[in-house]
């Protein structure tokens, strides 16, 4: 079961929400509803967040992101639809249940930090625990633990105003972590930070989440950030979901022009992964192959090297044309001892790191799964054409079809 299930959620602001709902059902536009004095916050939003997932909600200003995330801990009460957290419909919660939800299960990090200026860093981080009635000593210990987690050791007794923006948001994060809730809601939590600090915070958030297995709903209007962080992305416009999928899906097949416009300005090398430029390895060598067999296979495809795998496709390495020729001349039985150790990459490695690895290697790069089995290959041309084809490049690649043989590349590299 998903951790959070949002079903047909609608939030209307204004004096006559029921009227607005009826208009919505008849297909009225947001503008028409606005003319009646109501405003559509979000309309018919559905999606799910899995346990331990980092879900990003993205959209332009006014698209309803904040309205949505504030419904998840009921800072906004929704007008229609359901939100289930661990299967329980929180839209039906009474006051007591709601307090328990906010204290134990869901905590929030705010765009402008929302720290209490008259409290020390530790007392800020301990706020949630204090509200729960945790004893002074224990809450101090747990607050300090959370502060260490976000790298604020040594600042315990400072006041927020003595900290830089990035550090203040770490306090905000620590305050949310200290209560050990399963779910973190982060509304543009990094938007007020300058770009370098922001990058740091993104990295730390990802690593924190890996360690702590939090379920995170993260809001941003920045696609780079969304792609950097999101396991999946909900893309919103005018209070509605326009696309819901992995970063990969959104980049490769934008659902409509709106998404496409969003995607236009992304630095593809950071967001594409190895799997998006992966080709099937059409021929491979086996360790027990003789040198002449290998030369024949190479000749057939006009390759200057082959990847060597076991029968179960566990990668062994690379055999080069020169090595095979040499072995044939000396009458070797197999290529077993001529296999060169080869760098490998995983399917989820970002293209940026693929490019780096490629730079230090002469032949095609194998992509393997975590068990070391060969999934396919990545070639220089493959990478370049993927980058050229991305919406960022003008006109994209001419040929369209990005399949370029490894041999062609290597041929030129040998020159």
């Amino acid at each position, binding site marked *: 079961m998903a951790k959070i299930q949002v079903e047909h959620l609608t939030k209307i602001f204004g004096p006559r929400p029921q009227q607005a709902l009826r208009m919505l059902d008849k297909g009225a536009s947001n503008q028409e509803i606005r003319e009646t004095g109501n405003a559509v916050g979000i309309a018919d939003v559905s999606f799910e967040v899995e346990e331990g997932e980092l879900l990003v909600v993205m959209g332009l200003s006014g698209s309803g992101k904040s309205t949505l995330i504030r419904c998840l801990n009921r800072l906004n009460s929704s007008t229609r639809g359901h939100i289930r957290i661990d299967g329980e419909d929180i839209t039906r919660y009474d006051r007591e249940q*709601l*307090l328990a939800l906010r204290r134990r299960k869901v905590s929030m990090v705010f765009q402008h930090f*929302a720290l*209490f200026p*008259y409290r020390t860093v530790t007392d800020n981080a301990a706020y949630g625990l204090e*509200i729960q009635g945790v004893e002074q000593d224990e809450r101090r210990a747990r607050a300090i633990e959370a502060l260490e987690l976000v790298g604020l050791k040594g600042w315990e007794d400072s006041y927020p105003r003595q900290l830089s923006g990035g550090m203040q948001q770490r306090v905000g994060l620590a305050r949310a972590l200290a209560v050990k809730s399963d779910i973190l809601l982060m509304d543009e939590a990094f938007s007020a930070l300058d770009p370098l600090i922001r990058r740091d915070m993104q990295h730390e958030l990802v690593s924190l989440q890996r360690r702590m297995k939090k379920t995170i709903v993260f809001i941003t209007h920045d696609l780079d950030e969304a792609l950097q962080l999101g396991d999946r992305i909900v893309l919103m416009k005018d209070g509605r979901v326009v696309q819901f999928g992995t970063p990969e899906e959104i980049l490769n097949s934008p659902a409509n022009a709106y998404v496409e416009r969003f995607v236009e300005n992304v630095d593809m090398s950071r967001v594409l992964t190895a799997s998006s430029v992966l080709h099937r390895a059409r021929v491979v060598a086996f360790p027990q192959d003789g040198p002449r067999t290998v030369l024949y296979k190479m000749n057939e495809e006009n390759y200057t090297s082959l990847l060597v795998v076991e029968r179960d496709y566990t990668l062994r390495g690379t055999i080069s044309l020169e090595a095979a020729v040499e072995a044939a001349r000396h009458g070797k039985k197999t290529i077993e001892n001529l296999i060169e150790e080869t760098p490998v990459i995983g399917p989820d490695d970002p293209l940026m790191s693929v490019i780096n690895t490629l730079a230090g290697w002469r032949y095609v790069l194998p992509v393997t799964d975590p068990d070391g089995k060969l999934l396919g290959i990545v070639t220089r041309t493959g990478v370049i054409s993927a980058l050229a084809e991305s919406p960022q490049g003008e006109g994209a690649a001419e040929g369209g079809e990005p399949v370029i043989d490894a041999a062609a590349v290597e041929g030129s590299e040998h020159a």
Partner: protein
Amino acid sequence: MNVMIPKFPLAHLIDVALNWLTTHFAFLTKAMSHGVSLVIVGITDGLLWLPPWLLIAAVSLAGWRVAGRRVGIFCALGLLFVWDLRLWEATVETFTLVLISTLIAVMIGLPLGIAAALNSRISRVVMPVLDFMQTMPAFVYLIPAIPFFGLGAVSASVATVIFATPPTIRLTALGIGQVPADLTEAADAFGSTRRQKLLKVQLPMAMPTIMAGINQTIMLSLSMVVIAAMIGAGGLGGNVWQAIQRLEPGKGFEAGIAIVILAMILDRITQRIGRNSPATHAK
């Protein structure tokens, strides 16, 4: 040959209403008055029982600790001067009156201000009443106070409370209203009850503003002392009132200067308390 529109009998109506209230409730208010006057007399006597130099030293020390050396020195010199003018007793009486009035004003004003801040309906009722209370000339309160509380310090402090409470109410409501929305939201998001939100976030954040309100209340109380003297409240106001009646400008000025000194001491010290309160760490 004008057609006269009959006069609306406002004065008569008010008198009738007050009469009715007096006959039915005066026994109650008189009893209260007795209690309060015991407190006032008790505090005054207690303070006067102390040797003046000791009290002066204590106040100066407090001024120095709270508001710095200059205020401390000012307290010492100012109060010694008052003592020298033979106005010590009157000053202590006035101080007690201000103290009691301010305490009552804060006890009424703080909860009302909080209620007005948290509930717009209460605010809509309270705010116009405050305007009324503040613009009505303070003398007017004295007249009905007498039948309820008798001549003397209690009636004076009742009139003073009515006149001086509005700033505390107003600025408490303002201070709480000005707490940034994202802080109250943060309090909500972590599951605070309304009470926790008030005590742990709204009041600490509003404290500098509330202290400014209390400071104004104190100043207004002081400004009432001369008026209060007209119904026998005594103190420095009594000296001024006497000087007016006997046409003794010198004596009038002496008492006036003592009032100014007392005002400045109270002002500097309470202002500083406001500025030192924790929420000012924000600035």
